[in-house]
C-alpha cells in the first residue's frame, strides 16, 4: 500500500478551480463544445408501451427543407453487439416501453429537426402493457444478485421465533415513488465521426465507462472512440452509464461523417430513457426486548425492473450492517414491467432503504417509549454485523449527540402533537445516515514534470462535485509540492483510464491512483526531477477495506412545521453531522452535504414521477409538475462533520461524501412530521393532503 499522504493542501478551503468559468458562463459543457458546421439531431420516441412498429412514413419530414435524414429501425446502421437490449437502439421494430427511442431526425438546425420530428408518422401494432408496481403482483422474482454485486437475500438466526417472543414489535410497510434524477444540465452529446475515430463530447460521469460500453456495440476498437467531458452540470447517477441516446448520437455521426451531430434531450425527454430510481414497497419488521434492544430485523423489498434489461436496486443492503441484532432477514423481489430501465440515482439502495428502516426505528422508539436517539444508542454494534469485521471507524453516536446539541433536542417534548405555533404544528425528528466506502479498482494516473510544473493526468470526471479542485489538492500533497505547481487534466478518455464518478468512490479511487503515481514519480525521479520525466501508476489494492468494515455515518435532525388548516409541510431547520473521514476541501464537501440533504428534503416532500398506467409513461414530465425543492422550501441547513481521518480507507484518509447527505433526510422528516402532528406518513412524498384534518 502507498504511504499515507501528509495533508497540507488537503483540508484547506479552496475555491473551485472551475468556479469563475462556471459562474461567468465560459465553462464549456458538452453541447457547447465548439464544432464547425454541425448538424442537429432530434429523437423520436414511441407513443405505445408495448408492441411493434408496422409502418413508417418519413416523407413529410424528409421533404422539409434543411432535413438531412430520418433514421428509423428500417435504415439505421446495424450495431455490432446487441446483447445489451437497452442500448440496441433502432435494431428492431419491437417496442418495450413508452418513450423508447424509435428514430431521429437530423437537420441543419435544431428547430427544423424538432419540427420534422413531429411530421414523422409511425403506425404501431399495440399490445397490452403493464407498468404499475404494486404489492399484489404475482410475477415478482428473485434476481441473482442486486446492484453492486450484493447478495439478493440474507437470513441469519431465527427471525420468526424472535418476532414471536419479542416484547415490542413494529410491522410497517413503506413506499417510495419513481423518482427521476433531473440534473440541471440535461443529457447532451455532440458526436463527430471522421471515418477513423468517433469523438463524443458527452455529459457523462465516466468517459472511460462510455468508451468501454459503447465501443463494442458500435463495432469500434476502444482507440477509435474518444469521449470528452470537461464540465458536467450534475448527474446524480443518471449519467453514470451510457443510455440509449448516446447510441443514437453515435449513429447520427456515422451517417453524417465529417459533420458533428449535436443532441440535447429536452426536459420532458429526461423522463424517458436516461434512468430513474425504481419505486419501492418495503415491509420492515422489528422485534425488540423491553429495553429496546433489537432481537429481529426483517427488511423485505419489492421493486421494479424492465423487460428490456434487469436493474435490481440493493435497497435492503444497509439493514444488514446498521444495527446489532442476532436474527436478521433481508430480501429483494423484482417485477419486470413494460417500462424503461431503472438505474442509479444518488445513493441507490441506501437512500430508499434507509428511509424505510430508519422511519421504522422511529416507530420502534415510540413503541418502546424511548427517545429515538437513545434507541439507536442501545443498538450500536461493536463490529460489522454482516461481516464480523471491526469497524474502521463508527462514530454514529458522536454525530447523533452533536446533532442533538445543535438542534436543541433536549427541549423536545417526548410526546407528539405537543407544540402549536401560529397555526403550525411543530416537531423535531432524527435519523441516522450511512454510506459504504466504495473503492473501484482500475484507475491509472500519469504525472509528468516540466519547467517547475507537474502535469497530473487521469480520465476522471468532475460532475459538479469539485473533483477539479480536490484532485489537485491530493496531487500537491502526494507530490509534496505547492498546489499552484499542479496542472490537473481530467475529463477525456485520451487520458489514463479512470473509473466512474459514482458510488461516492471518485476521490478514493482517483486520489489513490494519483498518490501511487506521485510515489512512483518521486521514487523514479527524486525531489528535483529533470524536465520531461514522467511516471504512471495504477491504483494499488487497498488492504484496509479487506480487513475492516468501512462506512461513513451521519445524523440528520430536522424541525418540521405542518399547517393545522391546510396540511402544508415546511422545514425551517435541518442539521446534518457527518463522519466521512478526512475532508479534502471543506468548501466543496459542505456543498455536497447540503446538496444531498436538499435532495433528501425534496424526496421527502415533493418528488414523484406519476406513470399513467393507461399510457405507460410519466405524465408529470416537466418542472412545473415534477416538483423538486425550490429555494422557498430550503431554509436553514446546518452542516458539519467530525474532525477525523480514516487510516484504513486510503492514503488520504478520506471517505466519500457525494451520497451520504441524501441518506436519512426523508426518514428524519417523516419522523418530525409524526412528532408535529401525531400522523405517520409511510408513503412518500409527504404531501399536504396526507396531513389534512
Amino acid at each position, binding site marked *: 500500500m502507498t504511504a499515507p499522504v501528509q495533508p497540507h493542501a488537503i483540508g484547506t478551503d479552496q475555491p473551485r478551480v472551475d468556479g469563475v468559468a462556471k459562474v461567468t458562463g465560459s465553462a464549456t459543457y458538452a453541447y457547447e463544445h465548439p464544432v464547425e458546421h454541425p448538424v442537429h439531431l432530434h429523437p423520436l420516441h414511441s407513443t405505445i408501451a408495448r408492441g411493434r412498429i408496422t409502418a413508417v412514413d418519413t416523407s413529410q419530414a424528409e421533404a422539409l427543407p434543411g432535413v438531412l435524414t430520418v433514421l428509423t429501425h428500417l435504415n439505421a446502421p446495424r450495431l455490432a453487439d446487441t446483447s445489451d437490449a437497452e442500448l440496441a437502439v433502432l435494431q428492431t421494430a419491437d417496442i418495450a416501453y413508452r418513450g423508447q427511442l424509435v428514430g431521429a431526425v437530423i437537420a441543419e438546425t435544431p428547430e427544423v429537426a424538432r419540427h420534422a420530428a413531429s411530421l414523422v408518422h409511425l403506425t404501431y401494432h399495440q399490445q397490452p402493457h403493464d407498468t404499475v408496481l404494486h404489492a399484489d403482483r404475482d410475477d415478482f422474482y428473485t434476481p441473482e444478485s442486486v446492484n453492486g454485486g450484493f447478495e439478493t437475500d440474507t437470513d441469519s438466526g431465527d427471525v420468526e421465533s424472535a418476532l414471536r417472543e419479542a416484547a415490542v414489535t413494529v410491522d410497517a410497510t413503506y413506499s417510495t415513488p419513481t423518482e427521476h434524477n433531473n440534473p440541471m444540465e440535461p443529457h447532451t452529446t455532440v458526436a463527430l465521426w471522421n471515418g477513423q475515430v468517433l469523438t463524443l463530447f458527452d455529459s457523462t460521469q465516466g468517459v472511460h465507462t462510455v468508451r468501454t460500453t459503447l465501443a463494442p456495440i458500435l463495432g469500434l476498437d476502444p482507440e477509435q472512440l474518444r469521449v470528452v467531458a470537461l464540465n458536467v452540470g450534475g448527474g446524480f447517477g443518471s449519467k453514470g452509464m451510457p443510455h440509449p441516446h448516446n447510441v443514437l448520437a453515435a449513429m447520427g455521426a456515422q451517417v453524417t461523417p465529417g459533420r458533428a451531430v449535436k443532441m440535447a434531450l429536452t426536459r420532458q425527454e429526461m423522463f424517458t430513457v436516461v434512468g430513474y430510481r425504481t419505486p419501492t414497497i418495503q415491509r420492515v419488521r422489528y422485534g425488540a426486548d423491553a429495553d429496546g434492544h433489537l432481537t429481529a430485523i426483517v427488511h423485505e423489498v419489492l421493486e421494479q425492473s424492465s423487460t428490456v434489461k434487469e436493474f435490481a436496486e440493493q435497497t435492503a443492503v444497509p439493514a444488514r450492517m446498521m444495527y446489532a441484532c442476532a436474527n436478521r432477514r433481508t430480501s429483494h423481489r423484482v417485477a419486470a414491467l413494460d417500462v424503461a430501465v431503472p438505474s442509479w440515482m444518488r445513493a441507490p439502495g441506501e437512500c430508499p432503504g434507509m428511509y424505510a428502516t430508519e422511519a421504522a426505528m422511529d416507530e420502534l422508539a415510540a413503541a418502546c417509549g424511548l427517545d429515538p436517539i437513545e434507541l439507536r444508542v442501545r443498538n450500536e454494534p461493536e463490529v460489522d454485523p454482516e461481516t464480523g469485521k471491526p469497524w474502521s471507524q463508527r462514530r454514529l453516536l458522536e454525530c447523533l449527540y452533536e446533532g442533538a446539541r445543535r438542534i436543541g433536542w433536549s427541549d423536545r417534548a417526548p410526546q407528539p402533537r405537543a407544540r402549536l405555533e401560529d397555526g403550525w404544528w411543530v416537531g423535531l425528528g432524527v435519523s441516522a445516515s450511512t454510506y459504504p466506502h466504495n473503492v473501484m479498482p482500475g484507475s491509472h494516473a500519469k504525472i509528468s514534470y516540466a519547467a517547475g510544473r507537474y502535469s497530473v493526468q487521469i480520465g476522471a470526471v468532475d460532475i459538479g462535485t469539485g473533483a477539479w479542485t480536490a484532485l489537485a489538492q491530493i496531487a500537491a500533497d502526494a507530490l509534496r509540492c505547492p498546489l499552484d505547481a499542479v496542472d490537473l487534466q481530467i475529463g477525456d478518455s485520451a487520458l489514463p483510464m479512470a473509473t466512474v464518478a459514482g458510488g461516492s468512490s471518485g476521490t478514493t479511487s482517483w486520489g489513490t491512483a494519483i498518490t501511487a503515481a506521485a510515489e512512483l514519480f518521486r521514487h523514479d525521479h527524486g525531489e528535483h526531477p529533470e524536465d520531461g520525466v514522467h511516471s504512471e501508476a495504477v491504483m494499488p489494492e487497498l488492504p484496509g477495506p479487506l480487513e475492516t468494515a468501512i462506512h461513513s455515518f451521519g445524523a440528520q435532525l430536522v424541525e418540521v412545521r405542518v399547517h393545522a388548516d391546510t396540511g402544508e409541510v415546511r422545514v425551517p431547520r435541518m442539521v446534518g453531522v457527518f463522519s466521512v473521514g478526512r475532508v479534502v476541501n471543506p468548501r466543496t464537501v459542505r456543498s455536497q452535504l447540503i446538496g444531498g440533504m436538499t435532495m433528501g428534503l425534496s424526496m421527502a416532500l415533493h418528488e414523484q414521477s406519476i406513470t*399513467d398506467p393507461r*399510457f405507460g409513461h410519466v*405524465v408529470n414530465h416537466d418542472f412545473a409538475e415534477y416538483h423538486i425543492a*425550490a429555494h422557498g422550501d430550503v431554509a436553514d441547513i446546518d452542516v458539519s462533520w467530525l474532525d477525523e481521518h480514516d487510516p484504513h480507507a486510503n492514503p488520504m484518509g478520506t471517505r466519500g461524501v457525494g451520497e451520504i447527505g441524501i441518506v436519512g433526510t426523508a426518514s428524519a422528516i417523516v419522523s418530525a412530521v409524526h412528532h408535529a402532528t401525531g400522523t405517520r406518513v409511510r408513503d412518500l412524498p409527504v404531501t399536504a*393532503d396526507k396531513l389534512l384534518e
Partner: protein
Amino acid sequence: MIPFDYQRADDAASAVATVAARADAAFLGGGTNLVDRMKLGVDNPTLLVDISRLPLNAVDVQPDGSVHVGTNVRNSDLAAHPVIRAHYPALSQALLAGASGQLRNLATTGGNLLQRTRCVYFQDVTTPCNKREPGSGCSAIGGYTRYHAILGSSPECIAVHPSDMAVALAALDATVVVVGPDGERHVPVTELHRLPGAHPERDTVLAHGELITAVHLSPTGASRSAYRKVRDRASFAFALVSVAATLEVTDGTVTRARIALGGVAHKPWRASRAEELLRGAPATEDSYRRAAEAELADAVPQGENAFKIPMVRNTLVSVLRELTPTEEQR
C-alpha cells in the same frame, strides 16, 4: 414547434385587425405561457403579433378611486404598486404567489388572465385531450387528477384555470376592457372565463381577435382582503386550492363577503352561495364553515383529488378567520 411569422404591433387597433383577419394568428404578451405551448406543439400559431411594447403599461388611479391597469403591466410591477398593496392586498398577494420572480418580471396582466390550463394531458400531444383537440376525449378523467376540478366540470373536461391573479380579480369584481374588430366592451372577470361544458377548447368568452387592453378595479373596499394559496412546494407551484376573499364586518355581523376559489374549476370560482349565506351571519368560525360547506355541496371529486373538498373548506375558514376584525379593530 412549427415555423411562424412575427410582427410587432404599432397600435392596438392594427394588432386586433391583423389577428382577427387570420385564424391561426395569436397575440404575444410576455410569452411565458404561449411560447411554452408552442414548443410543446400544443398551440401552433403561424403568426405572432407582439403587443408587449404597446404603451398599455400604466397603473392609473382614477378620480373616483378605481384603478385602471394596462394589459402590459408586468405581474411584478402590479404586485409592488403602492396602491395595489394598500387597497387591494389580495391582488398583490395573489400575484406574488404566482410563478417565480423571473416569470413575474415578464408575465403581463392580460396574458396572466389568458394563460391556459396546466393539465398534463393538455400539455402532452401524445395523449387525447378535448381542449387541445375537440372530440378526442379527456385523458384526465380516470388519470392523474391531483390538480383537477371539483366544481363545474363536464364529461368533456375537468381541467382547472391556473392563474392566481384571476382568482383575486374575480373576488374583487374587476372587469376587463376588451377591444375587438367591432370596438370596445367591458367584461366582468367572473364572466371572462367559461366552464368547459361541451366546448372545453374555449377558455373564455373572447372571440378570436379580441384583445384585453386593461383591467379595471372598482373602488370598493378591498383593503381588508387576502389571498391564500395552498401548495405542496413553497414556491413555483400551481395551487392545489386557493382562496381570495374580502370581508366586511359590523358589530360582529358579516355585512359583505366576496370570495373566489382557485384550483377548483375551469374558471376562477366565485363562491356566491357562500357569500349569500354569510350576509348577515355572525362573524364566527361556525358561520364560515357552514358557508364553505354549502359552497362545496355540489363538489364532485375526481379520483385522487377528493382532498380538495376539505382543503378548500379549511382554507376558506382560515382566510375568513384571519380577515375577521379582532376586538381592538372593532
